[in-house]
């Protein structure tokens, strides 16, 4: 009779599973592709948008006037903007989608697009930009494209570039901001002698390589994957050069030790303690001024290039976009909201108040070139989002761990990269 319990167990489990599978999760294709031109009075329903604290404070308050303005234009549509925590947002979103309780619109970054799109959770929003596609920077659109379809409409762009601490430079007698790796390394001894660090490298395995290793790889002229995306390409000579450069930085004591294993918070970061001269992939918007390092201490430089043959002046910059979920019951209204929020005037007002740049050309320059962020805006042409595919995250995860090992233990760079490439190729062949 123990079977009775086993059976009950199995029944409960099967029930739950069947319930999960059967009615799906409310995926309904509400007739046809979404279009961006509809009579405002014909649209109705509630649109729920999930966004995250992009502004340092008061993100929720920022959206109230926007919602009010939109609801005036579309009198029968209600918009509900919910600011969710950054923490565990994927778990939250995936669970919500699985249970059929997701929002209508959600803010996503390129890193998230492939997996959500591949699971059929996102709606193709190509039709929303078809009328003014040329107004968007191609980079921005590509970053949110997967398998040829666009899954998010760009809302903001970010650029990273070289940032220099003027006070530290002065203290060590450095007068020029370096433009190549060798120039930077040449400044190393002077800084070290005065007790400063040349730069900082965050090697913790959860740190996205987009902001650490990949820019170096690109600056050396390399690529993460081959052109057809089926093979690892980071173990090329460019990759070896980049890894070798990092190992030199660590060996010669030019970088602080902690960030090699643990992501620093702004107040524990040696950068904000005024100990570091150059930040290789720095973003003015995410600088946290401290008493020791006020904003005025910084200067903006062009992204580095490796200086070796094939080297490029290039850096990373992400894109943030708004996506519509396939399970939304109000796709037409959601489409109208997304189109409006990503229209020129709205992007201009949002990005300029959130310290981000516009993915639309028609918005023009947002910040004055006399400000730090304005100078960073000028670096936008040098910025790439990298190429994203379904396995990007896992590749980054595996590679980051291997890189950290190679950096901490000073192993042979070609070997380390080759072993990582083998792993990556296995992964790629498994999923294709």
């Amino acid at each position, binding site marked *: 009779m123990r079977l009775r319990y086993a059976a009950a167990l199995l029944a409960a489990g099967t029930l739950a599973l069947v319930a*999960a599978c059967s009615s799906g999760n409310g995926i309904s294709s509400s007739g046809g592709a979404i279009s961006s031109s509809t009579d405002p009075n014909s649209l109705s329903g509630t649109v729920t948008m999930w966004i995250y604290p992009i502004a*340092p404070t*008061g993100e929720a308050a920022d959206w109230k006037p926007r919602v009010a303005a939109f609801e005036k234009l579309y009198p029968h549509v209600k918009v509900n903007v919910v600011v969710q925590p950054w923490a565990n947002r994927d*778990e939250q979103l995936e669970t919500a989608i*699985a249970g059929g309780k997701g929002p209508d619109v959600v803010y996503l970054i390129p890193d998230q697009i492939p997996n959500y799109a591949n699971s059929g959770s996102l709606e193709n929003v190509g039709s929303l930009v078809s009328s003014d596609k040329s107004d968007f920077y191609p980079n921005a659109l590509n970053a949110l494209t997967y398998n040829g379809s666009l899954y998010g409409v760009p809302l903001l762009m970010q650029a990273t570039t070289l940032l220099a601490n003027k006070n530290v430079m002065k203290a060590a007698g450095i007068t020029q901001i370096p433009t190549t790796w060798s120039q930077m390394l040449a400044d190393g001894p002077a800084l070290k002698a005065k007790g400063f660090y040349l730069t900082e490298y965050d090697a913790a395995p959860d740190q996205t390589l987009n902001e650490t290793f990949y820019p170096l790889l690109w600056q050396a002229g390399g690529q993460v994957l081959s052109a057809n995306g089926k093979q690892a390409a980071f173990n090329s000579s460019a990759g070896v050069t980049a890894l070798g450069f990092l190992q030199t930085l660590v060996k010669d004591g030019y970088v602080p030790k902690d960030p090699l294993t643990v992501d620093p918070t702004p107040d524990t970061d040696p950068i904000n303690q005024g100990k570091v001269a150059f930040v290789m992939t720095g973003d003015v918007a995410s600088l946290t*001024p*401290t*008493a020791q390092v006020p904003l005025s201490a910084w200067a903006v430089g062009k992204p580095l290039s490796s200086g070796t043959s094939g080297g490029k002046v290039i850096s990373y910059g992400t894109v943030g976009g708004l996506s519509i979920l396939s399970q939304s019951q109000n796709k037409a209204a959601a489409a109208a909201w997304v189109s409006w929020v990503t229209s020129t005037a709205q992007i201009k007002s949002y990005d300029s108040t959130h310290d981000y740049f516009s993915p639309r050309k028609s918005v023009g320059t947002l910040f004055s070139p006399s400000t730090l962020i304005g100078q960073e805006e000028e670096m936008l042409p040098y910025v790439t989002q990298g190429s994203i595919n379904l396995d990007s995250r896992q590749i980054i995860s595996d590679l980051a761990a291997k890189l950290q090992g190679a950096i901490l233990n000073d192993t042979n760079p070609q070997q380390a990269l080759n072993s990582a490439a083998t792993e990556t190729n296995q992964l790629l062949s498994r999923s294709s």
Partner: protein
Amino acid sequence: MTTGIAPDLARRLAKRRSRRKLWAHLPLALVALLTIFPFYVMVILSTQNGQAISLPGSLFPVHFNLSAYLAAIQGGDVMRWALNTLIYAGVSVVLVLTFASFAAYAFAKKRFFGKTVLFWTFIAMLMVPYQLTLIPQFILVAKLGGIDTYWGLIVPTLANAQALFLMRQFISQVPDELIDAGRIDGAGEFRTFVQIVLPQTKPILATLGVFVFLWHWNDFLWPLVETRSPDHYVMTVGLYSLEAQNISLAITMAAAVITFLPIFFLYLVLQRYFIRSVAITGLK
């Protein structure tokens, strides 16, 4: 307590006891220091917003500011979130303790078919990591229409195997004579349980109650996933929803202190009760 022992043995015992007392203070104090230190860090660092952190200055600062606290709660409805959390934790504690102690009594003192298998099934479920159960549990609550409701938040957390395990261990040590004495006096099962057995378990009920309350108070992932609107957030979720991506340790610590303080006061009030009760148990 001790019946007539030889005088020199008594002397030996007394000497042993006083030597032990001195010896005991040292490790006790050392461990106490190590235990408190991280809390000291938490509070001190929360007052250092806008300062880069370095040692030893940051741990013995001359300047303090409370801007981190302001930043941590700005734009959010903290009072509302605290109320939500209080309801979540409070109702859960009462119900968890009720269901667990009733069931534990049956497991400890009664015979019924399949008892061991059932009990071990409950314990076994503790061995399934939440990453596997999160989505199925959410789908279940969604299908029952409980998303974004109080009951949807609370009910899935009520069957607590640890509570059952602990209650059972302790109820099984309640002497059967007491229970039988109750039955002799004509008390029914229910009265026997409530009036005789439960009072014997007060210390563990109090301890367990605090623990279950804490677990709910600090819970983040399930409330995050279950609630839909900001006025239904619990404290942890609400405070996190105000944090931009690159915030300072000071603000994180301030949010931690805000979440910690109510529990701390509750604990101060209750700990006297249950620690005393634990001591009373020992004198029996």
